[in-house]
């Protein structure tokens, strides 16, 4: 068996686009980890090995979720298609990855430290890898464990000797625990191969959900992913449409139904249900942040103060604003990326008036998220000025960040029905860049860091100016081309696929 092929095997389970993103992310992560490791070795050579092992454990946990676990998807295909040779290669690949990511680093680090801790360090790394793999093959509803993992680690630290503790204590519990995890993984793996129900519905492994429901497919034209998502969602989590007032006389409301998702008018009960589930999520998040704090820092009050603190509150609002923009754009891209769906229905639906009326109504329906975004921007600026006493450059940066989110939505709302910049990675890259820049700028403008007035520093100001120009110029061009395209189109429901 060719070792290069065995190394490449898990990557083949992802789509080409996801694979490129994953590869870029892996390279970046490895580069950062190597850099940190080199710095650590030069500064603290004595206790470098345990720290490096901790780093590798975390990397392995991430790596076995994102890179190695897709082997299971391939194994499933190989089993269904009756490809025994591929099945054998998958097992070999799994062994090779275990050797390279667990055994080799564990032994090398152990030898570097004199050889006494080799077993403990290897076990620690194996535990990280098994946690990652277990997370990937476990049913997705168990993903909540990931959110509480900091709390778990803190709580466990009080009565279990963690890796930093003397090796024997750690080995006593970690060895059987790691073994149990690998047995559990083996059982889930075998069940998925032989029982079709284990890969469907509630039992569907996190890994399979991640394959169709990742950020990249959401931002792209992953229209089928959206249908799958709706089909997989529990009925009580489905937003219920309010068809009241829809019809030929109510163009904007009718078009909102056809745009679906965040644009769709919902019944009062549905709105309350969505609000309650959102609130429950936030409450759960707050709870998880409070619980470790109560044991680790001794005072939940300080965490509460952080949560309710004005700078973080403004940052949260800024993030919500950018999410609203990105979600709206993603929704529109999906609609205009499918030829056989809503567009053909809308193009032939009587009662929508002439093309000019329809285009106007469509823009009003698609730009509806601007209302809450404007409201949130107003709150952001008000809190920044009155509560945080933000200075001029900070306020300008906050306005720029929030305004850019709205501009992004506006430009893409013109560009998508206008038939420009739908395909390819450039638009996606621009959206991701805009999202990151807006949030980074909001964070910089807030007193979250020790130094005040960060945007006023010359170097930061220049970097920000260049960064914003590199977003706003292509965004303006896109919006302008979209506007022209939309005006020229005989009707706005021509697919871009």
């Amino acid at each position: 068996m060719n070792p290069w092929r065995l190394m490449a095997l898990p990557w083949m389970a992802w789509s080409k686009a996801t694979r490129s993103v994953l590869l870029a992310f892996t390279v970046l992560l490895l580069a950062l980890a190597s850099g940190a490791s080199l710095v650590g070795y030069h500064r603290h050579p004595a206790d470098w090995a345990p720290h490096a092992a901790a780093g590798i454990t975390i990397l392995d946990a991430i790596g076995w979720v994102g890179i190695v676990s897709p082997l299971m998807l391939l194994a499933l295909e190989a089993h269904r298609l009756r490809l025994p040779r591929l099945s054998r290669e998958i097992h070999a690949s799994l062994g090779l990855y275990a050797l390279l990511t667990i055994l080799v680093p564990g032994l090398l680090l152990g030898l570097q430290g004199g050889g006494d801790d080799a077993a403990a360090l290897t076990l620690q790394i194996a535990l990280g890898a098994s946690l990652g793999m277990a997370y990937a093959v476990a049913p997705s509803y168990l993903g909540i464990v990931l959110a509480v993992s900091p709390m778990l680690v803190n709580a466990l630290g009080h009565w279990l000797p963690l890796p930093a503790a003397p090796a024997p204590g750690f080995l006593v519990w970690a060895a059987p625990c790691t073994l149990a995890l690998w047995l559990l993984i083996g059982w889930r793996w075998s069940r998925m191969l032989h029982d079709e129900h284990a890969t469907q519905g509630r039992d569907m492994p996190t890994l399979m959900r991640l394959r169709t429901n990742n950020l990249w497919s959401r931002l792209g034209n992953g229209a089928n992913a959206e249908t799958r998502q709706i089909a997989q969602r529990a009925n009580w989590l489905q937003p219920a449409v309010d068809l009241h007032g829809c019809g030929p006389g109510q163009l904007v409301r009718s078009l909102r139904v056809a745009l679906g998702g965040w644009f769709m008018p919902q019944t009062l009960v549905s709105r309350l249900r969505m609000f309650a589930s959102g609130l429950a999520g936030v409450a759960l998040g707050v709870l998880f942040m409070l619980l470790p704090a109560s044991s680790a820092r001794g005072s939940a009050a300080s965490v509460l103060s952080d949560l309710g603190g004005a700078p973080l509150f403004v940052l949260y609002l800024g993030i919500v604003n950018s999410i609203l923009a990105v979600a709206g754009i993603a929704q529109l891209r999906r609609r205009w990326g499918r030829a056989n769906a809503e567009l053909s229905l809308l193009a032939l639906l009587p009662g929508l008036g002439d093309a000019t009326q329809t285009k106007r109504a469509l823009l009003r329906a698609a730009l509806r998220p601007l209302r809450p975004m404007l409201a949130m921007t107003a709150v952001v600026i008000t809190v920044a000025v009155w509560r945080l006493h933000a200075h001029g450059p900070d306020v300008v940066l906050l306005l720029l960040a929030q305004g850019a989110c709205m501009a992004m939505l506006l430009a893409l709302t013109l560009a998508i029905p206008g038939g420009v910049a739908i395909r390819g990675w450039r638009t996606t890259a621009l959206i991701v860049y805009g999202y990151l820049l807006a949030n980074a700028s909001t964070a910089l403008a807030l007193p979250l860091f020790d130094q005040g007035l960060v945007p006023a520093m010359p170097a930061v100001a220049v970097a920000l100016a260049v960064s914003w120009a590199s977003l706003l110029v292509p965004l303006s061009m896109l919006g302008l081309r979209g506007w022209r395209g939309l005006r020229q189109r005989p009707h706005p429901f021509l697919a871009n696929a």
Partner: protein
Amino acid sequence: MNAMLKDTDQAAVAPLAVRGLMHCYEGSNVLTGVDLALEPGSVLGLIGRNGAGKSTLIRAMLGLLEPLAGEARVFGEPALKLSDDAKARLAYVPQQPEALAWLTAQQMLDYVGRFYPRWDAGFAKSMLERWKIAPNKLLAKLSPGERQRVDLIRALASQPELLVLDEPAAALDPVARRELLREVALRAGESGTTVLFSTHIVSDLERVASEIAFLHQGRLLLRCGVDETKERYARLWLPPRMSAAAPSASLSRRRHDDGSLSLVVERDAHGQWPEAAQLAGARLDAMGLEDLFVEIAE
């Protein structure tokens, strides 16, 4: 009087007509100058291999895409600028309907029905029951066959004068397919609905179509009545020594290993077969619709 004149005008206008339609995707030609017009009340089956351009032709005919060249008209209006009146008279069911997955079947029919002046809500309800489709189930949770049926109900409940179906039977089981064809035949026979449907299934064409149009590599190779095909087209086989006498105009031409030649030939304007068919040793075989399709498409 004006109303009468309008009715006469509407009857005279072809419900669907295209002229010189050309389109390409990523540099490869999909439609290369298609001319086609449907007579009111006719049932035209559009047949062709995968990738022949059937769906593109249908989409261009209805103004769902902007062709590179040519003109498409629906009830005499430019397809890309249809009035509400023209839209209310036509219904289209795409291949693999995927629209409004976030609505239930009932909600979708209720929503769409509000826009059609002649919407038959009773028909929609009874068809949902007849086809055993749960009205409160989300469209995203229905099987492909069920979704296709819901979309067919949507199209038929609007009581269209022009019904355009793109591979309507692709996801249907044989029973549902038979029911659909019966419904189409009924609509065409009783209400005079004009129907255009694309398919690979030749037996479906024979069952309901009054005419067929054969699209091959973006060109319309032939168009005739279904009953005419056996009379009008035949396979001409010429032994190797006579292959030089083969007529230059033929729909397909295949040379066998032994040097003999098979051609699909057509009667001329006077109803005569090509002269080569009269030669001693030449053989003329009648062809069924499926044979004709396979001979031309190969």
